[in-house]
């Protein structure tokens, strides 16, 4: 395999795993002896320090190789020739790998992501449908006053202990609590959610409260897309039992709980997929790229 400088998006890793085997000799003749990373002599029988030295060596090599990757020279470190696996690295790992020298996410032996062969991306991009965010206005609020003085607010203390306020642009809804905390829902992008939250804070400010804009955080993102072919849900639940739950008597879709990234997908027979539980946009895209090859395997046409 020739050297691949560009990693495929959201796939496992293409880092040179093969070079970093635990059976590597401690002091190879090529390794510069006085590099400053090998403080202890070979005769030291303390196994822990041996392991630490191994780790330090490997870390140094990995840094060298990272720079070698960029410079385009694979043999820079003088170690065993780098093996670039572009396929089948997503699920296997060598025993004894320490987390020290992983810069790209490694998947452990127990499958937390379903095993998928590296393939081209699907070409479908999930659309974001809803963003839920929270912000702290930093002051106590009198909900009765807000409900009285704001046009777009509703407040029914017997039903719910918060004011429900809506604005037209971006079209969102906010729940404003008397502690000063606010939840903003309905935006279609992160920036829109932030803008909407600022508008609500400004409304509250104009109503006479010393509102600030503290700790804005996106709590949940929901996306959806269509793979454009029908899916055999019964087959999918049989092969991916530990992740999926399909109860046609309760809900028509299959609930797939992906572990990495931690996203819940609702998969329907028509091919529509809803992804939820993400904190950043990339998680939704990554989850969809993970599920698409699996769904393609269950595509049946009659």
């Amino acid at each position, binding site marked *: 395999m020739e050297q691949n400088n560009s990693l495929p998006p959201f796939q496992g890793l293409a880092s040179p795993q093969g070079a970093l085997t635990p059976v590597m000799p401690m002091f190879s003749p090529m390794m510069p002896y006085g590099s400053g990373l090998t403080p202890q002599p070979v005769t030291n029988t303390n196994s822990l320090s041996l392991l630490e030295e191994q780790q330090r060596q490997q870390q140094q090599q990995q840094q060298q190789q990272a720079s070698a990757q960029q410079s385009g020279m694979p043999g820079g470190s003088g170690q065993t020739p780098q093996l670039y696996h572009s396929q089948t690295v997503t699920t296997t790992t060598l025993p004894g790998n320490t987390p020290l020298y992983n810069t790209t996410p490694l998947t452990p032996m127990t499958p937390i992501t379903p095993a998928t062969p590296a393939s081209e991306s699907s070409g479908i991009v999930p659309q974001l449908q809803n963003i839920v965010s929270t912000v702290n206005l930093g002051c106590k609020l009198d909900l009765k006053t807000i409900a009285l003085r*704001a046009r777009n607010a509703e407040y029914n203390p017997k039903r719910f202990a918060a004011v429900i306020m809506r604005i037209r642009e971006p079209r969102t809804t906010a729940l404003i609590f008397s502690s000063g905390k606010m939840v903003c829902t309905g935006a279609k992008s992160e920036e829109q959610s932030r803008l909407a939250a600022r508008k609500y804070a400004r409304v509250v400010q104009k109503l006479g409260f010393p509102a600030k804009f503290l700790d804005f955080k996106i709590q949940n993102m929901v996306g959806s897309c269509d793979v454009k072919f029908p899916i055999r849900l019964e087959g999918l639940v049989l092969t991916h039992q530990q992740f999926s739950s399909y109860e046609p008597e309760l809900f028509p879709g299959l609930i797939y709980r992906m572990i990495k990234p931690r996203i819940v997908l609702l998969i329907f027979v028509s091919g529509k997929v809803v992804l939820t539980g993400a904190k950043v946009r990339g998680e939704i895209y990554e989850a969809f790229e993970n599920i698409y090859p699996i769904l393609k395997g269950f595509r049946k046409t009659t």
Partner: protein
Amino acid sequence: MAAVGLKCPECGSLDIVDDEHYSQPQLVCADCGAVVSEGLLTTTRSEELQGTDVRYSNSTEVNKQPCRNQIKGIHRVRALCRILRLSFVMEETAENYFKQAYEHPSFIRVSLQKKEVLAGCCILATCRQHSWPITMGTMTCLLEANPKLMGVVYQEMVKALKIEAPPTSVIDLLETHCQAYKLSPQHVHEELSESSKDLTKRAAVLLELAADAWLVTGRQPVPILTASIYLAWQSLKPTQTRLKYTLARFCQMAKVAKSSIAPKRVTELKEVLCKLGQELPWLRGSEMTPQTVVQMVDDILNYRLTLLRKALKSHEAALASESELPPSLEDTQPGPRDDAPSLDATASQPDAESAQQPQQDVDLTCTVVMGGLSRAGSGQVSTPSKRSLFEPPSVTHAKIRRVQLPVKEVTGDEEISDSEIDSYIRTPQEMRDYAEAKEALSSSEEEF
């Protein structure tokens, strides 16, 4: 010195001390020894630090006896297993699950109602693991519980105990479901009776066809079972008496619960059969309607593989010819037949001509594998406009979504205009009106 200002009622001295007579606290005058006041001899329950009641579940007893509700629950599990006539192994497994789940932290404190449902859920999971066909609906009926609660508790239990219980397939449920239908000669008139074995066999083939045509995935299993048994019963002896029976009357006769969804499934299944029946060569061009299809079901099912292949071919031909036809020609063609399989709106009108050329070999992009119903038509997914012969109904009757406005690009840190914010705030006049209206409303409410 006790509290400041206390005077001995006997001698008037201010020297009052806290003294204890055995365990009774007393305030005593130091000069004359008179007891000014005394406390209680015994402590109250709330003051005691040792010896208060500890809940049994919090106690440190090593070999805990199961609590009363747990014993009741285990009895319930056993009773349900006897009702369902499960084997001894399954009964043991269910009991084990129940014990584990009951002591699990997520179930030890739930309401009694949930604990009752938990018993049923354990049995359901055991049945699924041993491939014993039973629906969640049956268990819900036996427990007389809320179906939503049943679903919630079942999913929680599976997660808590980390067990894997594959859901039962619809075809496995068919045999047990069929036995509920009282159609033996002793129950109904001889002309209407049917043996359970024949009924099951015919219904199984219909069910397989329905499953391949995407009528089963994602839907409630019981209505489709009812629909396939009804059609099987009608088609086994398609006499006029049988054909006159509607689904509701059939369920009444067989002493089975009615369902509002089953008629829709019957219609869908008939449509699928029509699509296949259209390809029968001895029709000679006459139409196949849902009314007439029932008599031909026998033939359709016997030759369904061939008919499916033909239907796929004609569908391909229809799609190909439709893309070749210029728009003007399409208008002059005869209008689409209403009773023809309507699932593919674009290809409806060329069906007429393709049915008359069943032997024409169309250059197929797809390869139809012998005996593999499900693997046919793999080449049709090349372009998104080509649709397959059978599609899930949710795709065919897609919901009309409201038009999505294009997402505006914002940075999130823009300037917010004052006028926009002012539009959300009431004018003083409005506020006065609102306050008056509220007062008027509240006063009128008080009158009532």
